[in-house]
C-alpha cells in the first residue's frame, strides 16, 4: 500500500468540501481533495445531455454574498449572470420580488388586506428584533396565529419550499426568522453560471491547484483511519491501487452517516450516534428539465409558485445564459417537494402531480414543452441532507475529524451559502488548532 502525507484530506468535492479545501490551501495547508466520481461538484455541478447543460442539483447562485466572497478570497474567477426577474405567482398574477419592501408587497397582494399584512409583518419584525419564536412548533403553525389566509400562507410555503426544500409545516418557526434576518441583511441577487455550475467549481479547483492544492477524481475513500479517538488519515482506492494517506485533519463532505461508516461506528460515542439518528432528516425533491423552442415563462425567468400542489419553483436559466442549450433551444427547470419529507415516497405520483402543476400554471407547457429528464433527490442523494434546524455540529466526536456540507449547516442558513459557511467554520477551527506543515 502506497503512503502519502498531507495536512488536510477532504473527502468529497461538493461545494462544502471545496470551500474548506480552497480556503485551507490558500492559507498554506497542504490539502488533498479525494472525489469518488469522475467529476467534481456533487450536487452543484453540470451534466451534459443532448446538448443541454443540466444542473445536478442547485441551480441559481447568489451573485453577492458568501460564495462570491469565497471566490474572491482564494482568487478564483466567479462568472455569474444575474437574473432578469424573480416573481411570485399569487392568484394568477406574477408579482415581482423587490429588494426593499418586497415581502410586504407580496403579502398585500396575497391578502388584499392592510391589517392582515401589518399584523404579519409586525410579528416577523418582533421575531427578528426581540426574540425568535420557539423551534418547538413549525413556521406554519406560528404564522397561523397571525393569519389563516391561505394565500398568505402560500407565499411563505412557496418561499420556504424553494429555498429550503421542505414545507412550511416542517420548518421550525425560529429557523425561519433566523434565515429571514440573515437574508435581509444583504441584497439577494441571484444568477446563473453561463458555462454551467461545473465550470464554477472547476474555477475554484483551478485556484486551488494554482496554490498547490490537489484534487484526485475517481478516487474512492474506503476508510477514515482513527486511533484513540483521533483521526489520522484515510485509505483510498484509485484506479490503480489502494493508498494510505496520513493527514492531521480529515474533513468529510460525504454526509455524517457516510462519515460514521468510513470511520467505523465503534469509534463514535453513543450520544453522537443517537443525536445523528434522531436529527437527520433528508429533504427530497423532484427536478424536471423541459426544453422548448420558445421560452415557456412569460414574465420572469425565475418564478415561485404559491398555490400549486407540489411545484414550488420554476427557473429558465437559458434566458440569462443561452449557452446552456443548443442554439435556438430553451431550458426550463422546475422543482417540487413531496407533501411529507419522510419515506416512503411514491415518485410516480409525485412526478405526475409535478407535471400537472406545470400544465396548469404554464399555458404553453403542454403544447410546446418536451420533457428532457426527470431527476429525483432523496435518501443518500437528497435535496438537502437535513431539514433546517435539524443539523449536526461540524465537529464529530473524533478529534480532527469534521463534517462540512448541508447536514451541518450553521443555523439560519440554507442552500449553497450554508455549505460554504460550514466550510468556513471548519477552516477557522482548523486554523486555531494546527499550523500548516505541522504533521
Amino acid at each position, binding site marked *: 500500500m502506497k503512503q502519502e502525507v498531507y495536512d488536510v484530506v477532504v473527502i468529497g468535492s461538493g461545494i462544502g468540501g471545496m470551500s474548506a479545501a480552497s480556503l485551507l490551501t490558500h492559507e498554506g495547508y497542504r490539502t488533498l481533495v479525494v472525489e469518488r466520481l469522475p467529476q467534481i461538484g456533487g450536487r452543484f455541478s453540470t451534466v451534459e445531455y443532448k446538448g443541454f447543460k443540466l444542473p445536478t442539483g442547485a441551480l441559481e447562485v447568489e451573485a453577492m454574498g458568501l460564495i462570491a466572497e469565497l471566490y474572491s478570497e482564494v482568487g478564483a474567477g466567479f462568472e455569474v449572470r444575474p437574473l432578469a426577474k424573480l416573481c411570485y405567482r399569487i392568484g394568477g398574477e406574477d408579482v415581482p420580488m423587490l429588494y426593499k419592501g418586497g415581502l410586504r408587497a407580496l403579502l398585500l397582494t396575497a391578502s388584499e388586506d392592510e391589517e392582515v399584512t401589518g399584523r404579519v409583518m*409586525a*410579528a416577523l419584525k*418582533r421575531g427578528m428584533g*426581540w*426574540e425568535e*419564536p*420557539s*423551534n*418547538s*412548533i413549525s413556521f406554519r*403553525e*406560528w404564522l397561523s*396565529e397571525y393569519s389563516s389566509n391561505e394565500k398568505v400562507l402560500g407565499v411563505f410555503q412557496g418561499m420556504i419550499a424553494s429555498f429550503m426544500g421542505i414545507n412550511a409545516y416542517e420548518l421550525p*418557526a*425560529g429557523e425561519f426568522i433566523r434565515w429571514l434576518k440573515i437574508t435581509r441583511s444583504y441584497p439577494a441577487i441571484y444568477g446563473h453560471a453561463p458555462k454551467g455550475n461545473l465550470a464554477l467549481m472547476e474555477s475554484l479547483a483551478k485556484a486551488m491547484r494554482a496554490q498547490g492544492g490537489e484534487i484526485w477524481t475517481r478516487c474512492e475513500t474506503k476508510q477514515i483511519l482513527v486511533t484513540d*479517538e483521533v483521526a489520522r488519515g484515510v485509505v483510498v482506492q484509485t484506479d490503480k491501487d489502494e493508498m494510505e494517506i496520513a493527514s492531521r485533519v480529515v474533513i468529510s463532505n460525504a454526509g455524517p452517516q457516510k462519515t460514521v461508516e468510513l470511520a467505523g461506528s465503534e469509534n463514535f*460515542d*453513543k*450520544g*453522537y450516534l*443517537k*443525536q445523528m439518528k*434522531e436529527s437527520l432528516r433528508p429533504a427530497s425533491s423532484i427536478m424536471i428539465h423541459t426544453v422548448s423552442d420558445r421560452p415557456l415563462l412569460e414574465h420572469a425567468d425565475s418564478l415561485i409558485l404559491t398555490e400549486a400542489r407540489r411545484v414550488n419553483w420554476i427557473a429558465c436559466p437559458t434566458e440569462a445564459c443561452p449557452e446552456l442549450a443548443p442554439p435556438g433551444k430553451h431550458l426550463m427547470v422546475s422543482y417540487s417537494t413531496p407533501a411529507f419529507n419522510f419515506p416512503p415516497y411514491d415518485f410516480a405520483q409525485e412526478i405526475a402531480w409535478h407535471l400537472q402543476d406545470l400544465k396548469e400554471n404554464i399555458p404553453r407547457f403542454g403544447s410546446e414543452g418536451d420533457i428532457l429528464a426527470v431527476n429525483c433527490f432523496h435518501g443518500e442523494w437528497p435535496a438537502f441532507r437535513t431539514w433546517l434546524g435539524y443539523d449536526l*455540529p461540524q*465537529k*464529530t*466526536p473524533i*478529534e480532527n475529524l469534521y463534517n462540512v456540507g448541508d447536514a451541518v449547516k450553521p443555523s439560519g442558513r440554507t442552500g449553497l451559502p450554508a455549505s460554504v459557511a460550514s466550510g468556513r467554520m471548519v477552516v477557522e477551527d482548523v486554523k486555531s488548532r494546527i499550523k500548516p506543515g505541522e504533521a
Partner: protein
Amino acid sequence: MKRENYDVVVIGSGIGGMCAAALLTQEGYKTLVVERLPRIGGRFSTIKYKGFKLTTGAMVVEIGGFIEQIFGRVGAKFEVHPVASPRYRIEGKEYELPRKGGLRTIVSLVSGNERESEGVMSAIKRGLSWQKPSDSISFREWLLQYTQNERILKTFWALITAVQAVNDHELPTGEFFRYLQVPRPPNYGFAPRGNLALMESLAEAIQANHGEVRTRCLAKQIIVTDGMVRGVIIQKDKDETQIAAKVVISNAGPRKTVELAGRENFDKGYLKQLNETIRPAPIFWVQAATDRPLVECPMLYLTGARRVNLVVCPTLVCPELAPHGKHLLMSGGAPDSSLPPYDFEKEKKLNIQDLRDNFPGFDEHTEILVASYFREDWPTYHSWPGYDLSQKTPIENLYNVGDGVKPPGWSGLRACAQSARLVVEDIRGRFKPGEA
C-alpha cells in the same frame, strides 16, 4: 385605581431579581421591586428559629465570583467569611483537593487504577478541548462508555447532585462539560448575619440609587397589549395600584410569569417549549441543631452515601448563626429521581440514615430543626440544568431572571446573577433610563 410610573418593575426579590434591580438602579433606571412575602431574598434569605439563623435555601455563598462582583459594583456590603478549604470524604477518608486538577485527583483516588482513571480523564479532556459530547444522552450513560467502575460512577454522581441538583442519569452530557467551562467561584463561605443580611445590603444599595423595594406587595397581573408589556398591577393590603413600566422582569419563575401575563398572550411555540422543557429540581435537606460540630471541616462533600452529598456546618466559621455553645449542621440530598411523584417519608428516612451512618453520635447530639422537601414551585432550581428557557419571553420587554432561565453551564447563585446581568445588558441596549 392608583397609578404610578417606573422604567422597570421587578417581580420577586430573589437573588436574580435583586441583582437585576441593583444593576439597573445604578445605571439610573427608575426601578421598583415588588415582593409578595414579608421578607426579601426568596430562597437566599434567613429565618430565625429557636435562636438559630436558618437559611431559606442556599447553604453556601460563592466568594470571589459574580455575586461578589455585582455587590462591589453597586456599592453593597458583602460580608462573607470563607471556608478554608472544602473537603471530600472518599471511602471513609477526608481529602482536601488541589485547586487545579481536583477532578483528576478524585478520580485517581477512587479508581486506584492508573489506566482506568487516565481513560476517563482523557475523555473529559477531549470533551473540553475538542468538542462537548452531545446532550442526547445523560452524563452517566456517556461515562459508562469509559468505565464500569461503580466507585467512579458513584463519585461523579455525588459531585453532580451536590452542584447541579440532579442525578448523573438526568444531567445531559453537554451540560456537564459546559459547567466545567463556565467560571466557577474560587471559594465558598457563610454570611455571619445570615443570607438575609446580604440581601438587605443589596436592597440598601438599590434604595440609595433611588430604587424602591416593597414587601407584602403581590403582583396580580402583568399588563400586556399588542405583544408588548405595559406594566404590572400590584396589591398591597387591600389597595390595588397600576404601575406603568417600559420593562418588566419576573423573578417568579417562568410558569408563574405566564400565569401573571395571561396564557393567551404567549405564542403556542413558547408554551409548548415551556411545557416540555421546564422541570423543577427537587431536594431534600435538613437543618439540625447540634451541641458539637460532628465535622472537622465546615464544607464536606460525601461521595459514598445513598442520598446526602453535601454537609455544611456554618457555625465553625460564623458562630453567631447559633446560640452560644450550639452548632448548626445542614445536609442536602437529591432524590433518586428528580421527576414526580416524590416520596417524602422515603427521602427523609434515607437522608437521615446517611447522616447516622456517616456521623457517629448523630442521634445523641442532634435535634432536627427543620426538614424540607423543596419541589415544584419552590424547588432547588426552577428547572434542571440543561433544561432552561431563554431570559426573553415572546412578549416584548418582558424578561425572566433566576434559576429557571440559567444560562447554559451556569449553576448556583451565580446562574441567577448571570441571568440578571444578561437581561440588564439587553435592556441597556434597548433603552436609556427615563425613556418611558
